[in-house]
């Protein structure tokens, strides 16, 4: 085989061109070394996307190995398109979360929509039917000029895709902070259900087997999307619009149904979606996992645009495409099922034993021409696959502890009793807080999502700390219904103050939310959003956040089964708050175990579970609103106490003695109680724990973790007491569900109607009245 050549009209690759594709000088040299010659233009494109931060995890790989990924429930850990955990009876929950931050900032609707499309494909590529999606969103300050347009666009994009394909969007979280002014976050999560024995993997097995292209035709959209996601933003970012892909959820729906039928026909060896770096990464990763090689004939790639070059075909991130390796002789069955669903399908290559990624193309050939020239394919790419994967660059980048800049200030002194309070009118303060964008109702958002399609949503958005979906598990013995609880969490402010504590708190809160829905946590996926890894301070935070996730996952026994890293979330040198978002999937044993947050019956006892507040306000929403800064010392977390609390809540849920459960988080116990009142449409009379010793703000608005407010009928008091004692969890009766007013004894009385009024209008300043 002669050495591959660039095609006529393509630039001759140089260091300068390599730099425009995001490669460093050392990496350019590594390309030359890997090939033993100069690359072709197409080859340079392949190296640049495969070695991009987005695809190679080159700055994070050395750290991610510390995460705990094994456990008895793990069916599939990291490294595949998605992770999977056992949910019993031979079925598993398949899930993953991914970022689509950069595209969503450039074009919010399509960026967010294709983020949803991509994560859905990651899940159904594994052979699982997607059953629920969630998302975690971060926007800049509410009064930033772009915030309304970005919020509207992202929400419409998520809804536009999810609603059309028919996967319910059942939950999520949103935070507004100035650090995201120039770099919003859109993290999309999807979970699906499959038979564990029937999972599909991204492997190009079987030398000689046909490689098949299924789905949308290839266009010029999204070229170098993976590279764009691996760089900072600046004033020129608007010009990156052509790197954003355009989604077609209808095409994806056809692809989903066709894929599930193709999988069931058992005609495939492996399959992978063409996500970031499109045809290139899917081909290379499938061959790498199988230890094979792969040869593509690019002349045969279905296309919708004229005069596509090999470089463009290899780097296009056109959406809704799959690469399949069929069992030899079974191609026609794949073709037939694709035709049933009106999908494009073509055999575009074959599996080889060379360990190399080889692409051929005929110079000047275009099947869209009226009279295409005769085909005479030449080799345009010939790269040893390990150089693109295992032997890709890997950096242990320098770390440096940031200089402490968050000294305690006077506002944070929470002790001294009510007389020392900074807050004079507690009722007004509570109404203002609960009516603010970070603490108020998210109904404007989730009303735009079909959160009930598939007939399975049994705890809807706003009803509980986690969403609960019923899934149908069908096999030869019949159909079993199972209940999955899912939550997604992160508070970047706490991570900013202390990355280990902040990340551990994110894991703990997420697991606590799942437990507060009555479920046992089974597995976790993460989406680690940080600034530039080339800054030692960012790398220091990243490394400690990974440790925090590790330690919390080990303590709470929740393995990490999939994940994603998004670096370079900064604009003009200003990084976002470090935001290691986590999502956890849990299993509710039976429907009666389900818990929701609303106070359910007058006369129920209200109790506080966990160690009571010491008034630590560091990083709290109240303090940020007061000072305009993320400041103070993190309250931190004691993971032993957290574990005991979660075990107690789960035992209480399974004993069916609670009427409600809601964890204390953003806004503190005052906002927690207000939310219980609003969700239940009932008032409460409460003696706030610590109110006599702490300032009003310390007692009411501190966001220390490991606390849950529950309510229960008086006749269950003894059982609740006993279960808490068995688990060593402090229990304090703090009040009773009563009337139509939230009475915080000695501090404030606020009618629930007023709370609801303020809370429901929290996003109005951004998006206008509903």
């Amino acid at each position, binding site marked *: 085989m002669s050495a591959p050549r660039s095609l006529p009209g393509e630039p001759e690759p140089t260091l300068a061109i390599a730099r425009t594709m995001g490669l460093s000088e050392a990496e350019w040299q590594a390309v030359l070394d890997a090939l033993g010659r100069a690359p072709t233009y197409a080859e340079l494109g392949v190296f640049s996307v495969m070695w991009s931060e987005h695809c190679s995890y080159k700055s994070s790989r050395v750290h991610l190995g510390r995460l705990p990924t094994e456990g008895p429930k793990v069916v599939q850990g990291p490294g595949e398109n998605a992770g999977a955990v056992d949910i019993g009876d031979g079925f598993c929950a398949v899930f993953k979360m991914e970022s689509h931050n950069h595209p969503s900032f450039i074009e919010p609707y399509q960026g967010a929509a294709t983020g949803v499309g991509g994560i859905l494909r990651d899940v159904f590529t594994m052979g699982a039917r997607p059953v629920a999606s969630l998302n975690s969103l971060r926007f800049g300050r509410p009064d930033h000029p772009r915030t309304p347009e970005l919020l509207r666009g992202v929400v*419409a994009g998520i*809804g*536009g895709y999810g*609603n*059309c*394909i*028919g996967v319910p969007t059942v939950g999520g979280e949103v935070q507004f902070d100035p650090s995201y002014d120039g770099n919003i976050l859109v993290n999309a999560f999807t979970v699906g259900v499959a038979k564990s024995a029937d999972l599909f993997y991204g492997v190009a097995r079987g030398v000689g087997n046909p490689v098949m292209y299924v789905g949308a035709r290839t266009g010029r959209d999204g070229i170098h999307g993976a590279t764009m996601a691996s760089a900072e933003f600046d004033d020129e970012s608007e010009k990156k619009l052509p790197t954003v892909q355009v989604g*077609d*959820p*209808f*095409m994806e*729906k*056809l692809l989903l149904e066709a894929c599930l039928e193709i999988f069931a026909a058992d005609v495939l060896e492996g399959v992978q979606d063409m996500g970031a770096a499109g045809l290139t990464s899917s081909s290379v990763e499938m061959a790498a996992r199988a230890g094979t090689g792969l040869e593509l004939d690019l002349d045969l790639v279905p296309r919708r645009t004229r005069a596509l070059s090999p470089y463009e075909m290899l780097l296009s991130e056109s959406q809704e495409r799959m690469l399949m390796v069929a069992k030899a002789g079974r191609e026609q069955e794949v073709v037939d099922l694709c035709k*049933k*669903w*009106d999908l494009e399908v073509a055999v575009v290559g074959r599996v080889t034993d060379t360990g190399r990624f080889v692409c051929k193309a005929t110079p000047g050939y275009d099947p869209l021409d009226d009279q295409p020239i005769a085909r005479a394919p030449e080799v345009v790419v010939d790269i040893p696959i390990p150089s693109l994967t295992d032997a890709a660059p890997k950096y242990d980048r320098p770390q440096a502890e940031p200089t402490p800049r968050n000294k305690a200030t006077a506002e944070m002194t929470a002790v001294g009793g009510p007389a020392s309070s900074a807050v004079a009118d507690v009722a007004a303060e509570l109404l203002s807080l609960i009516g603010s964008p970070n603490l108020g109702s998210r109904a404007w958002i*989730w*009303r*735009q*999502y*079909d*959160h*009930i*399609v*598939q*007939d399975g*949503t*049994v705890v809807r958005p706003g009803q509980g700390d986690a969403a609960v979906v*019923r899934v*149908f598990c069908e096999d030869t013995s019949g*159909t079993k219904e199972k209940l999955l609880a899912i939550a997604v969490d992160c508070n970047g402010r706490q991570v900013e103050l202390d990355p280990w504590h902040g990340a551990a708190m994110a894991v703990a809160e997420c697991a606590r939310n799942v437990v507060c829905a009555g479920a046992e946590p089974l597995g976790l996926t993460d989406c680690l959003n940080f600034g530039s890894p080339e800054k030692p301070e960012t790398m220091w935070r990243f490394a400690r956040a990974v440790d925090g996730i590790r330690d919390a996952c080990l303590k709470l026994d929740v393995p990490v089964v999939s994940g994603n890293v998004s670096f370079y979330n900064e604009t003009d040198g200003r990084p976002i708050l470090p935001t290691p978002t986590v999502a956890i999937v849990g299993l509710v044993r039976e*429907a009666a175990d389900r818990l929701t947050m609303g106070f359910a019956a007058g006369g129920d006892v209200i109790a506080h579970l966990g160690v009571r507040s010491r008034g630590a306000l560091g990083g709290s929403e109240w303090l940020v609103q007061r000072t305009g800064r993320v400041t103070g010392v993190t309250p931190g977390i004691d993971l032993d106490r957290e574990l005991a609390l979660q075990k107690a809540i789960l035992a209480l849920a399974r004993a069916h003695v609670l009427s409600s459960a809601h964890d204390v988080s953003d806004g503190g116990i005052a906002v927690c109680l207000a939310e219980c009142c609003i969700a239940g449409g009932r008032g409460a009379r409460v003696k706030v724990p610590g109110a006599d010793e702490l300032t009003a703000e310390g007692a009411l608005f501190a966001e220390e973790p490991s606390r849950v407010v529950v309510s229960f009928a008086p006749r269950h008091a003894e059982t609740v007491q006993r279960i808490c004692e068995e688990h060593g969890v402090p229990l304090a009766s703090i009040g009773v569900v009563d009337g139509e007013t939230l009475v915080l004894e000695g501090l404030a009385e606020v009618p629930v109607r007023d709370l609801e009024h303020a809370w429901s209008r929290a996003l109005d300043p951004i998006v206008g009245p*509903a």
Partner: protein
Amino acid sequence: MKIAVIRFPGSNADWDALHATRDVLGAEARYVFHKEPELGDVDAVVVPGGFSYGDYLRPGAIACFSPIVPALRRFAERGGPVLGICNGFQILTELGLLPGALTRNRQLRFECGDRWVRVEGRGPFTHAIPEGTVLRLPIAHADGRYQCDAETLRRLEGEGLVAFRYCAADGRIDDDVNPNGSVANIAGIYSEGRNVLGLMPHPERASEAILGNEDGFRIFEALRTHLEAA
């Protein structure tokens, strides 16, 4: 009792309809793919919700050209009960089996959540529910604003063909409780022959205790008593 649930490309509440009719109602329900030329031996047809053909051109417009449509039309014209839910309602109006059209919601946004609807017109899907009963049913649509010309509206009202109207919890009807700007708060209508019902709310997603709402099941139960009496 045999029920066909038609699957168009882009139907996404097909499972919801199959589950409600087969597993909850206990009918012999099955999918019929849109490329089939015949419905087979069935007593009733459900045209489910979703985004047939991606809502391209107009919701429901392209589904009219699917191979199954002539069989569906014959079934409806022979008086067979047809239930069109959400996108199914949109398809039935595009087919001319129901009058009027469903346009973009007044607020120009997708709207999902429970709404109250008042049961009015009599027919195979409502005869067993007392007139004036208020049901809680979920909606999930971006194009649910029912519109028709004045003459059609007079006929619908005059002949009692308005099956469901958006209302308050106490049955009161005004514009405040109209989730999409539909004319006269119309949520669902019967055909002139009363065998075809189209509605935007999703009764199939409100038919089980575990979902916290069984109001929608009364519509399927009514169909069962209708078919059993026939």
